[in-house]
């Protein structure tokens, strides 16, 4: 057989049937379920008297609407509460495993899947959420679907799919101190644009990707959707296998070794051809800050807000003008002179233990310097991705560092990434955020979002404006 890409291998091993026009019926190994995109799917199942095809393939948790403070008081917003209660009721009725709001394992679906070992290499994984691409970090084919397809997978364990084209994003060399997976992701999107990956399954490869932790790879694959890609993925290596070992849902004993042998084959063969290849030099990537209302509107922290007069075409020019007006920014403003009102550290992009450790280094440095969150910052919040991440961070004392530096330490959930719960920006407020989307109104109507890495967000909290983490790196990142 000719050389195959990782994507080819994942695809080939899941095809159940192919129609004459190439549309394939693809078997789905896992579906993660949350409260926002599932109620109408369960309603459809009930109306047609259908049952889930395979219960063991499903894991549910509420995350989008969940409060991150005073959880013992329940959910104040009655509409949010109904949605979460509807998930509870549907899971109980259909017999689906759910980590409910007060379960210590509850968290963001894309954090708990890998954490539990429910996400495994070689699987097809779907969820009614675009950031399902996260799970591709394990050498899996993972992508977001709409509610009709949520129902379709519940009922049939399959999806109709056209095979995507393949793109390799190859990042070679060593990242500079203070530069993270988040910065790679934003740099790639800045290069190819938010539609640059449309129609492609993207494999991230190269020495800089091999050097990333599993958490870093998850951050990178998470953002693949912001480049428009169908899926993001990273080949399996020993880090992947080591991460899986001992996870609650991972195979055990002899079966683990059998699985690991298979997992190690989940790499693109030497000489496999991609439809497109993008190469980046890791050493050339600087910490990134978005300035506009699309993740592709991004510059390095030592850069300036761009001038629409220099936009490459008329459509971009009007986009940039509209973005500057919405963001309340003037062309040519240096990024490190932009003040922030709020700071959000969390989301399925950056709420794992490694992310919190990076941000906590800044908090720890601030405490040692007798500094706190700056006076102009109204709120700096840290929202762990799951109950288990929270417990781990507390065991390491990170919560104490954060609170001593003036950050709020919250309970896990999606929180201010999309502001479906009570955590949100007020009109005109500006936020340094470790989340994934800076769309208009994303974090609250009229709110202004700048996407950054966890350490950059923490530093913005302490200084009250963006700062180049590399300048602080020698002091902070000890």
């Amino acid at each position, binding site marked *: 057989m000719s050389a195959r890409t990782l994507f080819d291998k994942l695809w080939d091993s899941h095809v159940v*049937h192919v129609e004459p026009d190439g549309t394939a019926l693809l078997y789905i190994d896992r579906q993660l379920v949350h409260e926002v995109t599932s109620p109408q799917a369960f309603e459809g199942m009930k109306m047609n008297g259908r049952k889930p095809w395979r219960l063991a393939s499903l894991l549910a948790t509420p995350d*989008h609407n969940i409060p991150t403070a005073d959880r013992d008081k329940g959910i104040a*917003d009655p*509409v949010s509460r109904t949605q979460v209660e509807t998930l509870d009721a549907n899971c109980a009725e259909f017999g689906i495993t759910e980590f409910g709001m007060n379960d210590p394992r509850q968290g963001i679906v894309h954090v708990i899947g890998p954490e539990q070992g429910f996400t495994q290499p070689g699987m097809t994984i779907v969820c009614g959420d675009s950031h399902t691409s996260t799970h591709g970090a394990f050498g899996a084919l993972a992508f977001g679907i*709409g509610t009709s397809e949520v129902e379709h997978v519940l009922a*049939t364990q399959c999806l109709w799919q056209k095979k995507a084209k393949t793109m390799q994003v190859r990042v070679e060399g060593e990242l500079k101190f203070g530069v993270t997976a988040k910065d790679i992701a934003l740099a790639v999107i800045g290069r190819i644009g938010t*539609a640059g990956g449309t129609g492609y399954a993207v494999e991230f490869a190269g020495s800089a990707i091999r050097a990333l932790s599993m958490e870093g790879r998850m951050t990178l694959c998470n953002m693949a959707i912001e480049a*428009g890609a169908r899926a993001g993925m990273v080949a399996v290596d020993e880090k992947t296998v080591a991460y899986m070992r001992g996870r609650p849902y991972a195979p055990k004993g002899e079966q683990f070794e059998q699985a690991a042998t298979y997992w190690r084959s989940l790499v693109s063969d030497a000489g496999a051809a991609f439809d497109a290849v993008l190469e980046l030099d890791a050493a050339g990537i600087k910490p990134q800050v978005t300035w506009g209302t699309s993740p592709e509107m991004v510059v390095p922290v030592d850069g300036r807000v761009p001038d629409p007069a220099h936009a490459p075409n008329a459509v971009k020019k009007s986009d940039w003008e509209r973005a500057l007006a919405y963001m309340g920014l003037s062309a040519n403003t240096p990024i490190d002179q932009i003040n922030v009102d709020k700071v959000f550290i969390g989301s399925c992009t950056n709420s794992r233990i490694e992310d919190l450790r990076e941000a906590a280094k800044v908090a720890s440095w601030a405490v040692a310097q007798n500094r706190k969150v700056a006076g102009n910052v109204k709120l700096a919040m840290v929202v762990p991705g799951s109950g288990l991440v929270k417990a781990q961070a507390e065991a390491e004392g990170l919560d104490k560092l954060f609170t001593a530096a003036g950050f709020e330490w919250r309970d896990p959930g999606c929180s201010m990434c999309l502001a*479906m719960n009570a955590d949100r920006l007020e009109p005109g407020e500006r936020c340094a955020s470790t989340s994934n989307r800076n769309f208009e109104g994303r974090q609250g109507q009229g709110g202004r979002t700048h996407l950054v890495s966890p350490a950059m967000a923490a530093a913005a909290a302490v200084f009250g404006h963006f700062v180049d983490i590399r300048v602080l790196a020698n002091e902070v990142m000890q």
Partner: protein
Amino acid sequence: MKPFTRLDGLVAPLDRANVDTDAIIPKQFLKSIKRSGFGPYAFDEWRYLDHGEPGMDCSARPLNPDFVLNQARYQGASVLLARENFGCGSSREHAPWALEDYGFRAIIAPSFADIFFNNCFKNGVLPIVLKAEIVDKLFRETADAEGYRLTVDLAAQTVTTPSGEAFAFDVDPERKHRLLNGLDDISLTLKFTDQIQAYEARRKGEAPWLFA
């Protein structure tokens, strides 16, 4: 699902790139556990001057006079003309639900985001990709002629202007068949039950841990 065959509809232009699903239907409306009733909240933050919340009576809300869909000439439009990467962002199917409930049955753009594109077909909404030059031309003609209409013929795969100029578009045969006939995907897929079970049996032999 409502079948889509042929549509002769008033065209409304939305002249901006990268319109995301947060803009099409803001997050507060995602709290609904229903599939219908999203039309009055489509483009809520652009369309109204106040802040919208689920359950609000939109007939009493102040409209934003600067938002193009609020212009009298575009009322009753069923064809939306848009720019590149329409529907990017979240996988929320509430976006096509809102557009369909608003009255749009066809969306024409130079490109669409993947998940949104797919979601449209599940809801009787036809997303049509035309070359950027053609979309530009349609934007100009829509601006120049009040009451500008387009005819979309799915069987023939054409978009026809009032002057009779016809533009061909591509659509997957399988999707076309399902949309033309308003077929329910799940019932169709369940006809493959034997193949799905055979796949599972084979896969269980190769990789038993997947079924543990």
